[in-house]
């Protein structure tokens, strides 16, 4: 249907280089999430695909056609904005029919399409209301409905859920996933929320300061981050990082110092690393276990205990480095207790001084 090919695209705002030689292949009917911290260029990327921003060099093609110089309406796209961007003086129906009316479609067709979109989004009852009479979630549905009615090849979402409250966000997230299955359209979704990225995406593209840090399926990114940035960005709570040194190295294993107490051998290696190098040991909170026999372990004092019901977060400190541990269910560990946390070597990540991951 609609592959999107982005080839060495650059973008400047004045002297600021915001998108640096970005190349991406987005497969037809995939759900691709552009994710990254604010200012990483993800929204700019989306707006360039939409045709709302100029491209300084490189090409963007949709379905094999270079669209660099096409206005948005000729790119066969629809976009959903963070602030919904509904037309406040029009009813929901007119909002959704606006694009179709501009295309000079027949009245019956407009009516059919709007009704269909309203049915999919369950907003049939609100069609004759004005946007200001709707709640945030309803407005967002209308904004999505406005995109659906035009039957575009590509849907672009610019942080569509970030104006909603937490409960509604979860609900809309599920509905967006359903919608993608229903419509079978190519969707590109921008968010800074890694949970949204993990749950919705077929492919996640992590952007960092205008560069694609890593692209892959959510579980690839989770299990196998390319670099420190992706490791830290994907997963919640954040991956723990501990500065340490390589004590010895073989072709498939790297042994690092565990803060003097012991050593651990991690089944990952890097060609550029050598003995004595400073490295970051990364381990996710959910891979740390309390009082269990394992490949490596620390003893440490608990500073904060956060009970969520389904799990408990323990905030520890080990020689100045903060350490978060996620345990299942309720825990009787109290603030001030000293606990022993263990972890398995295969769950560890190593990042060298240029922040690249050991593989």
């Amino acid at each position, binding site marked *: 249907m609609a592959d999107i090919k982005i080839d060495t695209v650059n973008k400047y705002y004045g002297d600021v280089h915001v998108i640096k030689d970005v190349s991406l292949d987005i497969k037809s009917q995939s759900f691709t999430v552009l994710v990254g911290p604010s200012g990483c260029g993800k929204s700019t990327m989306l707006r360039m695909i939409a*045709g709302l921003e100029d491209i300084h060099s490189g090409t963007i093609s949709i379905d094999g056609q270079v669209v660099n110089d096409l206005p948005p309406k000729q790119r066969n796209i*629809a976009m959903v904005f*963070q602030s919904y*961007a509904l037309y406040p*003086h029009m009813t929901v129906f007119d909002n959704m029919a*606006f694009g179709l009316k501009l295309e000079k479609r027949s009245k019956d067709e407009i009516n059919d399409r709007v009704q269909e979109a309203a049915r999919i989004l369950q907003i049939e009852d609100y069609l004759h209301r004005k946007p200001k009479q709707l709640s945030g979630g309803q407005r967002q549905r209308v904004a999505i409905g*406005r995109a659906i009615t035009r039957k575009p090849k590509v849907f672009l979402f610019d942080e569509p859920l970030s104006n909603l409250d937490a409960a509604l966000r979860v609900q809309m997230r599920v509905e967006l996933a359903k919608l993608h299955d229903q419509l079978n359209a190519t969707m590109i979704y921008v968010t800074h929320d890694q949970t949204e990225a993990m749950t919705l995406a077929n492919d996640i593209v992590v952007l960092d300061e205008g560069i694609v840090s890593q692209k892959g399926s959510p579980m690839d990114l989770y299990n196998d981050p390319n670099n420190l940035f992706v490791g830290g960005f994907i997963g919640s709570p954040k991956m723990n990082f501990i500065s340490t040194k390589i004590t010895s190295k073989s072709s498939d294993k790297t042994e690092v110092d565990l803060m003097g107490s012991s050593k651990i051998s991690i089944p990952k290696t890097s060609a550029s690393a050598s003995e004595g190098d400073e490295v970051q040991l990364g381990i996710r909170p959910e891979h740390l276990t309390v009082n269990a026999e394992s490949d490596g372990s620390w003893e440490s004092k608990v500073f904060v205990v956060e009970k969520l019901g389904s799990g408990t977060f323990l905030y520890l400190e080990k020689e100045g480095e903060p350490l978060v541990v996620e345990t299942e269910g309720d825990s009787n560990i109290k603030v001030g207790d000293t606990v022993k946390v263990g972890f398995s070597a295969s769950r560890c990540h190593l990042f060298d001084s240029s922040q690249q991951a050991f593989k």
Partner: protein
Amino acid sequence: MRKLSLTSILSQLLLLIFVIIWIIPTFGLFISSLRDKDLLSISGWWTSLTTTEINEIHRMLGMEYQIQENNYYIIKGSIFEGNTGKKITSFGITSKKINEFSLGEIATFKDNSEVTIDENGNYVWKSKTEFTKKKGKRLFTTSLSPPSFTFDNYKEVLFKEGIGRAFINTLAVALPSTLIPLIICSFFAYALTWMKFFGRDTLLALIIASLVVPLQMSLIPILTIYNDFGALFGVAAKSYPGVWMAHTGFGLASTTFLLRNFLKSLPNEMMEAAKVDGASHYDIFLKIILPLSIPAFASIFILQFLWCWNDLLVGLVFLDQVPSEIILTAKLKELLGSRGENWEILTTGAFVSMTVPLFIFFALQRYFIRGLVSGSVKG
């Protein structure tokens, strides 16, 4: 319940004072314009609801009205024309003692003729000898006049003094002078806000800079240029198109600036959504900007219309002071010179000139407030 603090009481008080200061002269003008012109000339509008004491001089009828009755020559008449409601309380026959006699008393002139008068102003003047003068003698009366309101002043001002014509002339000046810049500035402000083109910011800076050029300074050069160009096309030196163009020119900068500030407050994402929906600039302008800008248009309309309506200077410079072209303010100024004594004409004329601004303001005021504060609160 709002807390009553000293500041809020003070500000409420101040507001009240301002309101009173603004309302009272307007109210006075309105009352005055409705009062009888004789009453208006001797007492203030605040006495209009009480009876007023009036001293008047009347001349009685002359010899041709005399009739003979029981050896007396009698002249009967009334000093009031029609029923004015005035009640005479005393009268006199010499200017030194104007209320020498009370009602019912007989006043005797030097020639032994006698006069009596009742409270409605009917007098009986009788003499044993024949009246021989064409003019009657003077009668000084003091009477109480009840409150009296009338539309006569309006009738006179609108149809006899030419204010009616001037009113229409002013409309003919003010309406195009408001609508033309409004139409131009709406397109202009849209382009300045939502279109990217070379020199846009410079243009905006120029517009803001032109706001500080005083009208009085550029008036004469513009008139000269207009006349030179007009001569090329055979257009009269002073005519309506000239004044329209002048008002358009002087108003365009401020209207554009105000409207641009409003448009700037509309969310950018909405325009982008429309662009993605396939709308051209023209579509966006007509289908999204225009309906959303009605409050802004209304407030700019009020400002520009009131400016043109109340303007005297531009109208004086760009129009001839002939009945077909003179505007209301110029006409009032002219009346002030020629009929300065006739308060009833001036107050009525002034009030006529105020009716349109008052009407416009009350009709559009809800937009006026919204337009001025729009953008300050998130909708």
